[in-house]
Each structure stands twice: as structure tokens, then as C-alpha cells.
């Protein structure tokens, strides 16, 4: 019987000496989805992912990956996952294509190496030693190594860090293609736009726990206030507007003729604002509803101050 989730982590605790890196973390990754694992540095992302990959033994809690125990059933699990390490894990003198061919040789039904090299734009540097590849090329080779064995589940650690915009979009397209073909992807990232673009599900981790999980839309919708902005004639009577609106709503004229409302921005509120404008002979020449971005949510949840 196959477990329905690709990754199931429950109550994971991992300590290094006196430091608790992961403190009762729960995470579920559904099969066939892209899940982004977001968190500040030191939040416990890498430790959690490395526990899923079988590198670390949990101090307590359970971890199941494709229904298997990553430590006890490592031999069964390893052929089924693809791992992209941030550090590369490639010998500096090893050549790009030979590294990829070698990884392919360790698998039963690998992807065709030339096609994969082409797809990742590594065509010109097959014979280049790893240390002479550019940062972006090294990154893409790391990604290719994770994919060549045709895994069911791939772990990508900051797959687009250090890539130029073209390469970044190419990588995103590839991740979408993976999902379309039924591969489950768990990616850790600092890039909010990446998480928002790619993922079906986002898990925000801080202090060794998942503090929020949901689709980007769910996360952005919930919680604190949204904003509606409009421009019109300067000096509108905001008190009269507020009377028409729900009690929690705030209003301000930021600069002459530029207004901002904060509160629960829903269709009703928008309708109320426009009908108030009509009654008062105001034509708002620009009106916009601003959704919170994932970055807003993230900063709200994990705190705005930088941490060491």
C-alpha cells in the first residue's frame, strides 16, 4: 500500500549539541506537487531536508519519504530520489558531461545525457572541469545530476541562487515540466518570487518549526490587512467615506488626491467605495487592490529584523 504523501514529517526534533536545529516540525508534501520550503537562515530547513534524504538521524519524531524510513530503508529510497546539494558535491577536476554520465550509470533507466545537457544549456561545456564552470553552469549541472536518474521526488536546495534572469526562468520552466510529468519537488529557497511562481504549497519555517503552510494564495489572503488605493480630487471627506465602510477600515490621504484604505478588502468594500464616489461626483482615475505578496507574509511571520 502506497502512502499518499511523498514526504511526511511529524514532530521532528534534531539537536546539535545544545542547539536545537529542528524543534517539533511537521510537514506534508503531496505527491505530484511543488512545495517550497521557506525560512530565514538557521531556521532548520537544511537539517529537515537532509533528514528526509537520509543524511541525519532524527532525535525524535518520524520521517517518511515515499513511505520509507530514510535511514533504515535508505538503500530502497536512494534510487527513487534526486538530490541537488547547494555545495555541489562534485570533484573540481571532474568534467561536466563525465559527471553526468557517471550519475546516469548508477541508475537503471536514466534520462538521455545529451538531451539533458542540451535542455540545461550546458552543451558548450561538456568537457570543462567543474571548477572552471561559471556559478550558473555549476548550479545547472547540480540540477541535472538530481534529475538524470528519473526520480519520483527531487530535493532542490536553492536551485536558482546565483543564476541570471534567463537561466532562472529556464530553471522555473523545467520545474514546471517536472510537475507536469508527475515528479514531486521539494525546494528550499530564499527567493519569494520563486516560491510564489512555482509552488502549489509553501511551508514557512522558523525556529525549527513550520509556522505556516498553504498555497501562496491562501497564505497571502489570510491574516493581516490588505490595501485599496485610488486617486481622485484632493481633499475628499474621508470621514463620510468611513461611515459607509466596515468599522475596522482605515483611510488616509497620503498625498493630495492619493488615497489609501486598509482593512478587509473584499468585493463588497470595493462596491461601497465606488458607489460613495458616484454619490459624491468623484471619478477615481486609478483604483487598485493590492494583495499582500508572499514576502509581506513571510516578513510578518518571521519578523522583519535581520538575524545573525
Amino acid at each position: 500500500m502506497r502512502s499518499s504523501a511523498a514526504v511526511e514529517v511529524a514532530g521532528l526534533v534534531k539537536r546539535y549539541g545544545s542547539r536545537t536545529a529542528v524543534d517539533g516540525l511537521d510537514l506534508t508534501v503531496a505527491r505530484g506537487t511543488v512545495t517550497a520550503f521557506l525560512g530565514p537562515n538557521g531556521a532548520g530547513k537544511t537539517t529537515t531536508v537532509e533528514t528526509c534524504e537520509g543524511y541525519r538521524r532524527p532525535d525524535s519524531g518520524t520521517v517518511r519519504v515515499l513511505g520509507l524510513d530514510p535511514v533504515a530503508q535508505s538503500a530502497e529510497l536512494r534510487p527513487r530520489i534526486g538530490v541537488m546539494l547547494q555545495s555541489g558535491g562534485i570533484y573540481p577536476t571532474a568534467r561536466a558531461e563525465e559527471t553526468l554520465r557517471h550519475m546516469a550509470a548508477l541508475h537503471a533507466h536514466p534520462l538521455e545525457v545529451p538531451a539533458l545537457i542540451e535542455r540545461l544549456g550546458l552543451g558548450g561545456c561538456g568537457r570543462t572541469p567543474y571548477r572552471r564552470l561559471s556559478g550558473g553552469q555549476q548550479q545547472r549541472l547540480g540540477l541535472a545530476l538530481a534529475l538524470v536518474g528519473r526520480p519520483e521526488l527531487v530535493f532542490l536546495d536553492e536551485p536558482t541562487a546565483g543564476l541570471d534572469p534567463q537561466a532562472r526562468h529556464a530553471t522555473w520552466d523545467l520545474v514546471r515540466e517536472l510537475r507536469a510529468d508527475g515528479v514531486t519537488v521539494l525546494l528550499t529557497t530564499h527567493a519569494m518570487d520563486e516560491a510564489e511562481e512555482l509552488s502549489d504549497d509553501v511551508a514557512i519555517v522558523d525556529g525549527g518549526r513550520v509556522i505556516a503552510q498553504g498555497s501562496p494564495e491562501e497564505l497571502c489572503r489570510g491574516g493581516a490587512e490588505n490595501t485599496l488605493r485610488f486617486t481622485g480630487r484632493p481633499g475628499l471627506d474621508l470621514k463620510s467615506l468611513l461611515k459607509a465602510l466596515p468599522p475596522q477600515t482605515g483611510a488616509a490621504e497620503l498625498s493630495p488626491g492619493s488615497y489609501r484604505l486598509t482593512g478587509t478588502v473584499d468585493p463588497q468594500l470595493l462596491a461601497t467605495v465606488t458607489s460613495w464616489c458616484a454619490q459624491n461626483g468623484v471619478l477615481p482615475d486609478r483604483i487598485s487592490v493590492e494583495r499582500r505578496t508572499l514576502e509581506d507574509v513571510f516578513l510578518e511571520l518571521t519578523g522583519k529584523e535581520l538575524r545573525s
Partner: protein
Amino acid sequence: MTGTGTGTTGGRYAPAPGAAPLPRMVRAQAWLETRTQLRNGEQLLLTVVIPTLLLVLFSAVDIVDTGRGSRVDFLAPGILALAVLSTAFTGQAIATGFERRYGVLKRLGASPLPRWGLMTAKTCSVLVIEALQVLLLSAVALVLGWSPHGNPAAVLLLLLLGTAAFSGLGLLMAGTLRAEATLAAANLVFILLLVGGGVVVPLERFPDGAQSVLQLLPISALSDGLREVLRHGTGMPWGDLGVLAVWAVLGLGAAARFFKWE
């Protein structure tokens, strides 16, 4: 099943996971390691250039008194022992130390290749390089007038036990020290054992007290054993084989116990 059509698509990346058959994995790994070693200039200096130079130089010029008989008959077995030391110990320690440092071992730890498969591959790679060294150095020695004796099986057994002993010690060093420390220490040990292990300098040149200690070194046992067989035609040098066996058990045991993969 989720609503995204999991597993039913025939796309290019549709999952088809599985490990390759074990012999294929080990062969691929051994081949990669062998190529990496043969491409590495510093390693070739250690495994090919230095032993060949020492063999030619010390055979041609009377630098050290090697006792009665032709100098090359004394030197060739010692140089073969040095070749095993350079590949199984120094080369393997440095390569593995840097593989650990660059995360190569970690990366392979998530691949289908099991750890013991990796170790088997490393051993195969060491044996292939040693075979090339033995061929080359024997050819050079023969040109210099070497006339080997003895039982080839005894030579093979000595070389294999020597390889096991040095591999254990090399992996112990690579798996416990920082890569830079391994690089320095492995080279230092190479030079010390070259001088004090009966490779080019007969142990009889050392004071008695030092001699009895130096005799117990794996390099001394290997060079002495090879010399017994190849120079004097001894059947099986059991004493030397015993010393190598003890080092092999201790070295491999400690490496298995203390090796850190990251």
C-alpha cells in the same frame, strides 16, 4: 492520486527510478576514480615519476651501500613496495580527503551506490593503478638488469596485503583529518617511510634499536617480504605477511570505526 495526473503522463521526466545493477555501479565508480587519478599531475608525480626516478638513479649511481649483489636486485622490490605505498596510502588518502571536503562523498551518499560499493570501487581503482605501476616499474627494472626470482603467488599476496594495510591507514587519515592536513600528513608519511622503511636504504644501515622498531612498519614488511621472494627466492615470507595482516586489520578496522563521511 492527486488531481495533477501523477504518474500517468509519458513526459520526458516521467519517473522511472531504479538503481543500476551493482556490478555496473561499481565499475562506473572505479572507472571514474581511476581516470581522475590518472589525470592528476601531482598524483602521477607521486605514483610514477618519483618511484621511476629513484629506481633509475639509485641503480645507476652508488649512493647507498645496498650490500652484496646487484643494486637493482635490491632496489626493485623496494620500489614496488613504494609504488603500493604511493597509490594505496598517499594517493588514496589525499583523493578521499578532498572528496570528503568537496562533498563528493556526501553527494554519492544520496545516490544508489551503497557505501561498501564505493569502497569496493576505490579498491578496484587502486589495484588497477598499482597494476600499471608494477608493469612500468618492472619493465624499467628489467632494462636495468633486474633478475627477479621466486613464487609469483607470494608476490601477489604481499602486494594485496600491503594494499589492504595502506588503504586502511590512508582511509583512516582521510576520514578523520581535514583535507589540507591529510594532504600534508600523507606526503610527510610517504617521505618518512621512503627513507626509513627499507625502500632504498637497507634497514641494516640503522642502529639496532631503531631497526627493531622500523621492521614492524608496514612498508618495511612489504619491501622486506618482496625482497625475500624476488631476490632470494624465499617461498612465503610468513613473518612479513603477518605484520602486514595485523596492520590491515588494525587500519581497516579503525577506518571503518572512525571514518566521517562529511
